[in-house]
């Protein structure tokens, strides 16, 4: 048995410790060790963006991060985006605007969109398309996704939601 590493992280606001092998990606640990299966494995080589999570607030591809690199890191996965039962405005707009079909790319898109709106609350269409370029969708043709992000930005500008204090639940 390969030696296991002991990691201490904060995932979706909760202190989370886990054991992993050095070769395991953060995505593998999130899904198979911590059972946070919202992050999806699409290509597993950094092209599709389905495994996007926020690491210290920056959007990263969890298939291209070793879990061992996450010591002391703060991680947000799709499970931590909603506040308890209340969906995040981006999630609501994806539903209302039918910005998903099969849904495999959706968690990654929502985290990239959240990272974008956290930095730039009123992005242009061009900025949205540029910043979401590392997330692939093979169903929607992107227009509905871009419109949902625009819609979420507009809503948030009109009535800023109070932030979720504890993050979502990690389990």
């Amino acid at each position, binding site marked *: 048995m390969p030696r296991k590493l002991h990691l201490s992280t904060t995932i979706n606001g909760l202190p989370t410790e886990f054991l992993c092998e050095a*070769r395991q*990606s953060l995505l593998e640990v999130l899904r198979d060790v911590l059972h946070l299966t919202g992050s999806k494995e699409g290509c597993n080589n950094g092209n599709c963006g389905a495994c996007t999570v926020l690491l210290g607030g920056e959007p*990263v591809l969890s298939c*291209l*991060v070793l879990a*061992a690199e996450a010591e002391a890191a703060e991680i947000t996965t799709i499970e931590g985006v909603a506040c308890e039962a209340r969906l995040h405005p981006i999630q609501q707009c994806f539903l209302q605007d039918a910005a998903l079909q099969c849904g495999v790319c959706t968690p990654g898109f929502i985290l*990239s969109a959240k990272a974008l709106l956290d930095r730039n609350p009123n992005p242009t269409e061009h900025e949205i398309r540029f910043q979401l*370029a*590392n997330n692939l969708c093979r169903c929607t043709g992107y227009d509905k996704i871009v419109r949902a992000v625009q819609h979420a930005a507009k809503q948030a500008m009109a009535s800023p939601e109070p932030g979720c204090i504890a993050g979502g639940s990690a389990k």
Partner: protein
Amino acid sequence: MKDFEYSAAATIDEAVSLLARWGDRAKVLTGGTDLIVQLREGQREADMVIDVKKIPQLMESSYSREKGWRLGAAVPCHRIYEHAEVADAYPGLADAARIIGGWQIQSRASIGGNLCNASPAADSIPILIAYHATCRIAGPNGERTVPVAQFCVGPGRNQLARGEILVSLDFPPSLPRSSGAYLRFIPRNEMDIAVVGVGSWVQLNARGDAIEAARIGLGAVAPTPLVAEQASLWLCGKPANDDTFAQAGELARLVARPISDKRGPAEYRTHLVGVLTKRTLAIATKRARET
């Protein structure tokens, strides 16, 4: 992925001694956006992965108008274009940092890693060459420096000897009336590997109408990134206008010795060297006038 040992080195000395001990069986991990894919797909093998992101010198980005810029080898791309002073002083490198992969890649991938991978098509190298950047290398026998233009020795091969690590890229101070620009050609809008990439740097005279000094770096037209030496020298003293830029492009074409592959035939790549040299010189000149 085959299992390996993982070590997050805390100091340069620790990384150097690990590299000296493990030799080729060790791989240095900065952003991991190439290394992890290569390890997973079996293109490279490692028994030891040395994460260098905990070493302060590799994560520092310190800029001063007088001293220039020291960019730690593991600093991720986004910290370059988000650092307003740096993006102002070295906009050509910000050009490259903005188009290396997508946003998620830029959160991790480093310029140092892009250079050490020594891909002929690496987006950062032509503009590093144009800016006269220097590699600061630490090893078992102390420190040495190598100009970026001499760092790559073949596709995927660099100057680093056993036990050596790239610590930082050092940029000379940004001179008055000088600036740079990087452009690459790809067949789609974003997210692709350069068919050709060109980085240009110019310094203008006091009136802003003639070029005093210039340097042009070329990517994806030879086994390593190149300096277009003749074109760079020819530009000195020439009027800063489109005719000059086009002629410099003609001269830059002469050093290109590209291969034909799936990204483009050799003739096309040579043609692109002329076009991109002209365009990057024009952008760099416009920026230099605005500084």
